[in-house]
């Protein structure tokens, strides 16, 4: 029988119609009867002991419900990994904006006045704000040494590398904090009753993370905590762990008030108080032969985790593992550490450490090229990983990836060589300079090492009496296409029309824990479980003699009806089973770090305006190998969206800090690209398949974040002949860089029209 292929087609987005008609319900669209509104009283200082809290006279406090750390029934922490982050500050505050008190009232308009009427006296303590200050340990603000976590990755004989080197190339590269800037701010609604326990509805990525955190905070068993994800307006990692905090706040208030409570942040609060991408500093020291081969080296990768550990150890892990890029290192020593400062804790943001370390690697490749007199193209070509070689963690590249060919294709599409030649010519005169830049990289999909094993994700597929199929996962939709892709996979596996499959509501009461919606794991890892659970449904019906191979949709419907009538609820489960023969050593940080890598070469064309020092990206080519493109429109949308965020990361999105507090927490002053700022972003795919992913898919959500920053900064250096090694790179930085460069381009713009 002729089977329709659903996977690989751009089927309609499952929840698309609701989105374009304005019917989708986000958390702030929901109103519960008798609901209170709440706000948070936060620390105004970076570090200190709370001496006294006073409540101003001008507020009718008896109308308010007020919650402090003393009201916490369970443990005062946001249970995640290290459990060091309090839900509400007790005796000490360790960062500006740290939550101290919660206030709730039926009239949301009176909350601000109440928040301002709370005065807090502190005994201030010295605070630290940069990686260098943290390393210097003038103040120790966490543990005994300000260090959340370290990793050491060692491969081969680094000393031999130094001895045999013809060149030793050093470089230091840094990246700033970046705000996820989902257009929907964080928000939660909580309700409590003795019988059912706590229910929360909110904007979130990981229902079971919130579930675990609420159990610990509220001292409730698993069946007395229910978490429901509402339609979520963007997340990008910014709603991976923070929702547990805001859910905890709403829950504590709901318990004390005996009424539902809604907390919605406004933009100022969300930007200042919630997580951002970890700032980073990477130092490279590389032994290179005169033929341009990397012989070995040392990489020191450091990230600023803010005041509490939260996710820093995992961000560090991914950053460290990606630090060597898509290259063959005969030997390497990677020392990675995450350090504490008195800033609001940094967290997950698309890429999760890899954009930071890959920025450094790809800038450094251009530096190596320059030092030894090779082109940026050639230096990469000579060092690309080949099938059969091992990565920095000694993972064997088992798939037939040909990075040289990928590079060639990207060069051709972008017209790199002839443009570079033309620009070199044009740049002699005129009011602007143009350049081309390359970034080659990889991104591991799924949880690192033994992570997926620990998650032990479970997925269900249900056959309903009417023949409809439901997918039961805790994986959430927040724009990236979870609902659509997982429905496609189930439909494909069952040979049913796409329309016959729907997603069960992302409600912990209804769905099993298929793991968090992070790490580019949903299509690949969870999708594969969906595929096998769906196959289980078909198998069950067939082996029950209710269905034959090659069945039609109608026959399936009838078989389901019969099965349900006979046996009741009809569900098949699939649990993650780690592939055999795959090993990862958590101690030595060595082995198969990821089930699959996606590979990419990105090329940027830029113009630097010499009057204003602004950089515009004129063309951007994004070429990647992704296993299998499950949905062309969605896949392209993910790459373009990620590249746009990467362009923001490179050129626009600066967090202005003062004493640990973000000063530019408004959309007017935190600059993300508008539709007038982005070039057409040209996306191309290659597909090698992936035995560990559903229908051959690899994760792609985070991949596009890794390439734009180094490609763009490489292009800027190509244009100006002056290197810049820190992002975001603003026109002010370019002007200063040109002024202090040996070529003394200070008065670069005195004459010469356009």
């Amino acid at each position, binding site marked *: 029988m002729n089977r329709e292929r659903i996977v690989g087609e751009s089927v309609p987005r499952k929840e698309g119609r609701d989105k374009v008609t304005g019917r989708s319900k986000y958390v702030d669209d929901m109103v519960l009867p008798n609901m209170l509104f709440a706000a948070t009283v936060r620390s105004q200082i970076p570090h200190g002991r709370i001496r006294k809290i006073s409540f101003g006279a001008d507020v009718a406090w008896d109308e308010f419900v007020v919650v402090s750390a003393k009201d916490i029934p369970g443990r005062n922490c946001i249970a995640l990994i290290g459990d060091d982050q309090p839900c509400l500050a007790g005796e000490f505050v360790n960062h500006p904006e740290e939550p101290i008190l919660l206030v709730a009232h039926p009239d949301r*308009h009176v909350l601000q006045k109440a928040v301002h009427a709370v005065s807090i006296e502190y005994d201030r303590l010295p605070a630290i704000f940069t990686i260098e200050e943290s390393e210097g340990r003038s103040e120790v603000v966490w543990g005994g040494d300000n260090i959340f976590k370290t990793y050491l990755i060692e491969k081969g004989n680094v000393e031999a590398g130094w001895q045999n080197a013809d060149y030793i190339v050093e470089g230091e590269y840094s990246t700033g904090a970046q705000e996820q800037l989902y257009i929907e701010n964080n928000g939660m609604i909580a309700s409590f009753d003795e019988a059912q326990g706590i229910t929360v509805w909110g904007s979130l990525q990981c229902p079971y993370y919130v579930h675990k955190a609420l159990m610990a905070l509220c001292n409730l068993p698993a069946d007395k905590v229910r978490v429901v994800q509402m339609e979520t307006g963007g997340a990008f990692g910014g709603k991976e762990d923070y929702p547990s905090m805001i859910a905890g706040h709403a829950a504590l208030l709901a318990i004390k008030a005996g009424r539902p409570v809604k907390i919605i942040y406004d933009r100022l609060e969300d930007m200042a108080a919630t997580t951002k991408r970890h700032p980073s500093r990477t130092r490279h020291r590389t032994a290179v032969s005169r033929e341009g081969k990397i012989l070995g080296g040392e990489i020191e990768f450091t990230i600023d985790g803010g005041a509490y550990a939260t996710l820093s150890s995992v961000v560090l892990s991914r950053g460290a593992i990606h630090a060597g890029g898509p290259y063959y290192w005969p030997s390497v020593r990677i020392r990675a550490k995450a350090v504490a400062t008195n800033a609001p804790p940094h967290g997950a943001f698309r890429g999760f450490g890899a954009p930071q370390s890959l920025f450094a690697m790809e800038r450094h490749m251009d530096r190596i090229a320059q030092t030894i007199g090779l082109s940026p193209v050639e230096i990469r070509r000579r060092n690309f990983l080949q099938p059969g070689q091992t990565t920095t963690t000694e993972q064997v590249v088992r798939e037939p990836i040909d990075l040289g060919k990928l590079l060639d294709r990207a060069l051709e599409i972008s017209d790199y060589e002839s443009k570079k030649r033309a620009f070199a010519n044009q740049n002699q005169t005129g009011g602007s300079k143009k350049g081309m830049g390359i970034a080659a990289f990889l991104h591991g999909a799924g949880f690192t090492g033994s992570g997926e094993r620990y998650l032990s994700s479970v997925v269900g597929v249900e056959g309903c009496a009417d023949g409809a199929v439901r997918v039961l996962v805790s994986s959430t939709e927040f724009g990236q296409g979870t609902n659509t892709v997982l429905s496609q996979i189930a439909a494909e596996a069952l040979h049913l029309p796409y329309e016959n499959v729907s997603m069960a509501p992302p409600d912990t009461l209804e769905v099993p824990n298929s793991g968090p919606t992070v790490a580019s794991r949903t299509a690949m890892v969870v999708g594969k479980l969906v595929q096998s659970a769906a196959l289980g449904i078909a198998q069950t019906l067939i082996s029950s003699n209710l269905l034959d191979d090659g069945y039609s949709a109608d026959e399936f419907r009838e078989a389901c009806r019969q099965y349900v009538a006979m046996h009741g609820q009809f569900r098949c489960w699939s649990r993650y089973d780690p592939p055999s023969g795959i090993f990862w050593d958590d101690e030595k940080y060595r082995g198969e770090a990821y089930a699959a890598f996606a590979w990419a070469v990105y090329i940027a064309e830029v113009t630097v305006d010499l009057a*204003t020092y*602004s950089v515009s990206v004129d063309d951007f080519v994004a070429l990647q190998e992704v296993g299998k493109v499950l949905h062309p429109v969605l896949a392209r949308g993910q790459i373009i969206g990620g590249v746009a965020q990467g362009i923001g990361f490179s050129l626009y999105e600066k967090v202005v800090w003062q004493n640990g507090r973000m000063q530019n927490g408004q959309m*007017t*002053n935190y600059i993300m690209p508008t539709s007038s700022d982005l070039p057409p972003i040209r996306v191309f795919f290659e597909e090698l398949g992936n035995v560990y992913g559903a229908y051959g898919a690899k994760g792609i959500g985070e991949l596009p974040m890794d390439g734009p920053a180094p490609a763009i900064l490489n292009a800027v250096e190509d244009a100006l002949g002056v290197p810049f090694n820190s992002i975001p790179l603003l026109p002010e930085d370019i002007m200063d860089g040109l002024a202090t460069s040996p070529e003394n381009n200070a008065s670069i713009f*005195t004459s010469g029209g356009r």
Partner: protein
Amino acid sequence: MRSNPSDYEMIAPGSLHAIVSLLAKEPGEWLPLAGGTDLMVQYAAGKLPPRKLISIWNLPELRRIEVTPNVLQIGAGCTYTDVRSHEVVAREFPLLAGAARWTGGIANQNRGTIGGNIVNASPAADSLPALLAYEAELVLVSVRGERKLPYVSFHTGYKQTLLAPDELIQTVCLQRRYSRYFSHARKVGARNAQAISKVCIAGLGRMANGVVEDIRVALGSVAPVPLRLTKTEQVVKGQTVDAALMTLAKKTTMAEIRPIDDIRSTARYRSEVAGNLVVEFLNRLNSQPAERALDYG
């Protein structure tokens, strides 16, 4: 939303006469609100102390554009959309049409008013340098009648103006004599749209016999007020535009302005770029083909 709506009274009397009468009767009591693109932002951020507000939005007396043979009269209540889409503005006052075009996005252009831009008096306001270059005149109105002011004298300090507490701006008057001028404007912001300017330039010039016959240059965001660069104009006027003049012009500009460091940019950057923008303007002025007589009837 950090303010309580019940703390703010607002009335909309609907006629200019009623409004100025009330402003005179209760001076300082009523804050005029036009399109709200500035005040409502402060309000939502909790930065507008509880006030009585009087709406001057969409008043027919203020939201009109009148074309006379020598003067274009733009009512202060005109939105940026009203301004940029008017054919005489587009044709004869491209600096102003252009500035309206790059103010915010379409939604803010449909509400922000030129009068609001002037009274709000931000040195970064987009349309103010254009008004300086065109030597606009303002008509202010109160119960005491109308008075006329050259716009260049209106701003006396950072966010301070000559507007009396009982006055409103009624009209912005532009002399219709710039058709034969070369015009050039550029805004430097953090991005291409929806950006508060770091520096912006509005320039008008005319070459004759190889020298600069007339020139007006105004900059925004480089001083507490929008600035007409009179000293720079002086060194340029009557001169040939060559490399030496451009170097001198840049140097004079950089000495004439008083930029600051703020959350958006640095004094050093503003200074350097301001100089570059003036040079760029002079270059373009000089590269124009020799003018032909134009007849605007």
